[in-house]
């Protein structure tokens, strides 16, 4: 299903973006967008990979071929050429489009829950696992099997075959 639906949605987004059917899908980053300075361009690509295309589904503006994504890519490059640092560019975009454009949510406020969920769960799981292992290690061999005679026979038979 994953693929089916994702394709369906991708198709839908595509068809919305290309309201008038074009000859073919445009590429994400167009040759005319690429900056002269390779260092600056590589920074632009890194920043773009972390920004969400607002009209797409879970695509970064670097991957998306939507018009809006192109505008945002151009905006990022414009700011970089103007001499902004990476953080300033991102802040500039977030100021205009909101927190929603960040593909990596900030580590602030309620988002701490998201970021700490993994580590806390790992500690919790580790603690439970540890105490379980300790208990198993300490418990003496339980004397008899809880299986009845007949059941044990049948189990042996299954195992043997």
């Amino acid at each position, binding site marked *: *299903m*994953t*693929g*089916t*639906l*994702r*394709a*369906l*949605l*991708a198709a*839908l987004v*595509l*068809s*919305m973006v*290309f309201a008038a*059917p*074009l*000859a*073919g*899908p445009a*590429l*994400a980053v*167009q*040759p*005319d967008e*690429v900056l002269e300075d390779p260092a600056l361009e590589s920074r632009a690509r890194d920043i773009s990979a*972390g920004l*969400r295309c607002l*009209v*797409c*589904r*879970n*695509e*970064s503006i670097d*991957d998306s071929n939507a018009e809006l994504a192109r505008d945002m890519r151009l905006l990022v490059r414009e700011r970089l050429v103007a001499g902004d640092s990476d953080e300033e560019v991102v802040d500039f975009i977030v100021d205009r489009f909101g*927190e*929603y454009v*960040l*593909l*990596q*949510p900030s580590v602030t*406020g*309620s988002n701490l829950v*998201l970021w700490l*969920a*993994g580590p806390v*769960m*790992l500690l919790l*799981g580790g603690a439970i*696992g540890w105490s*379980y*292992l300790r208990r*198993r*290690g300490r418990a003496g061999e339980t004397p008899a099997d*809880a*299986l009845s005679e007949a059941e044990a026979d*049948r*189990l042996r038979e*299954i195992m043997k*075959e």
Partner: protein
Amino acid sequence: MITELGHFALVLAFLVACVQAVVPLIGAHRRWPGWMAFAEPAANMQFLLTALSFAALTYAFVTSDFSLKLVTLNSHSAKPMLYKITGVWGNHEGSMLLWVLIVTLFGAFAAWFGGNLPPTLKARVLAVQGMIGVAFFAFILFTSNPFLRMAVPPFDGQDLNPLLQDPGLAFHPPFLYLGYVGLSMTFSFAVAALIEGRIDAAWGRWVRPYTLAAWVFLTIGIGLGSWWAYYELGWGGFWFWDPVENASFMPWLIAAALLHSAIVVEKRESMKSWTVLLAIIAFGFSMVGAFITRSGVLTSVHAFATDPERGMFLLLITAVFMLGGLTLFAARANMMQAKGVFSLVSRESALVVNNILLGVAAFVVFVGTIWPLVSEMLFDRKLSVGAPFFNMAFTPFMVVLGLVLPLGAMLPWKRGNLRRVAGSLRYAFVLALAVGALAWAMQSGRSALGPVGLFLGAWLVSGAAVDLWGRTGRSGNRLSRLGRLPRADWGKAVAHAGLGVTMAGVAGLMAWETEDIRVLQVGESLELSGYELTLLDVREIDGPNYDSTQGVVRLVRDGKEISTLYPEKRFYPVAKMPTTEAAIDIGFWRDVYVVVGDPQDNGGWAVRTYYKPLANWIWGGSILMALGGALSLSDRRYRVAAGANKARAVSGGVPAE
């Protein structure tokens, strides 16, 4: 007429499922053999009726019967036959029918090969499977009926989404469903055993093949989907951490945890309650996956045809089964006494670590997937959780898993000696370090991702080899003994090595990919990572149901022509949709990936080329993992335990407990 028969068969199957959900359960409770025995023919009948219904829908698609709404919306008379057939499940209604067909198939499977199950357990398993059937039949009949007619049939259909007209994607859903629904079987076994009040080694042995099969199918399904995204979406991404992808990844992780903990139940009668809990949760994640993909709540950015009715129904099904399963679990938790005793350093402990890592990793994916929803509802913060988060939060678990896996896999049951195991793995470790160091020395960038990935890959593969070799004893003809090792041993080694290969592939591709975007005039060349690519021609060609602009690109390395690539841009006039068909020169060490874009004002063409190192290792590793699972599944002890008709005769004579 055939359509109506199909519809009728579906309704009948629903009724059979209703009876199957109740009668055997009462029979098992009251110890009435006749009522219990009802489960088997009911499961068969349910499967036959659903298969009939599915065949009727397929027939409608094959003959392009546009009086059926579903066929009109998703097919076209000019579509190639393969995609007419796969179009049956290339839409919501048809895919649900396939889903329920697989539910009944697994039920019938348990009826055919469950000869050695105690009669009460078998009756209960089939009854629970019947309940799952009831839920999905009701879902289809009341919210997603594929057999609706059109009042005025059109001359032709609206065609299947062109992105779906592709072999990779055509067979991706059936495999995924076999995986998702395979987990319904483990759920049925868990619930039946809880009702029965008995979880023992035999239960572990019965439930493991279904888990293993489900996991193998999920592996294949996810692999196919990722491969499709790689070559079809036009920029060679293989995993996007999209909610819909995560929906299939979470059950995969949980199933991986479950198939390991079931070994502990089977061999050592420990971790029973945890395993039962996992079996319930695994199916829960399958259901959550179905809910995510079909309700559209998590993809709400754009008004995709979200259907609240379907979403609510699925949520209801999920809630009922999860609440029911977990309540039963809580009520019976005290009867699951662990038996086996083991020390801190042992295979059991290693598998506990495996389960913690896989479980927490699945939890991280789950939280990340639903966080946008939670955050918007509870904190009024509209935000996105995308690939950068998952890469950062998920990867550490896989790195640790890769590090400890070869050690844990070689520890003996009950009590092990870490030093001895580490000693036998020292050459594997040195080899892996050497590979990682070599990668570090050769790469130009300073990212640790590539070297770490290759180190883990080499460590897992060589660790698996050492493990296998160590099982052949100390002397004598070890090579011939290697061939005669149980298939489960081979399966374990192959699957673990496959995980290593996939890890190396993912890391290598992400770390060392290079890309070139430029305008090429016909006849011009560009250079990419030592390859020279020349755009020889761009021409128009006609496909069966599309028009295409095809580029002709020559690939040369060191003055020697390697191949000619034909990247295409297709346009499907009926669906009014363009697609890109990347051209890929596939190699063991790297792919060269070419996409042709739009014509430019000055006469050239936008051309994107990628050099993708180790790309195919990702899917090669997935194939190895699936193969390992299949080898394990074909191990003698399951073939015997599952297929024995003799055992059935014996158990038939034993009165119900």
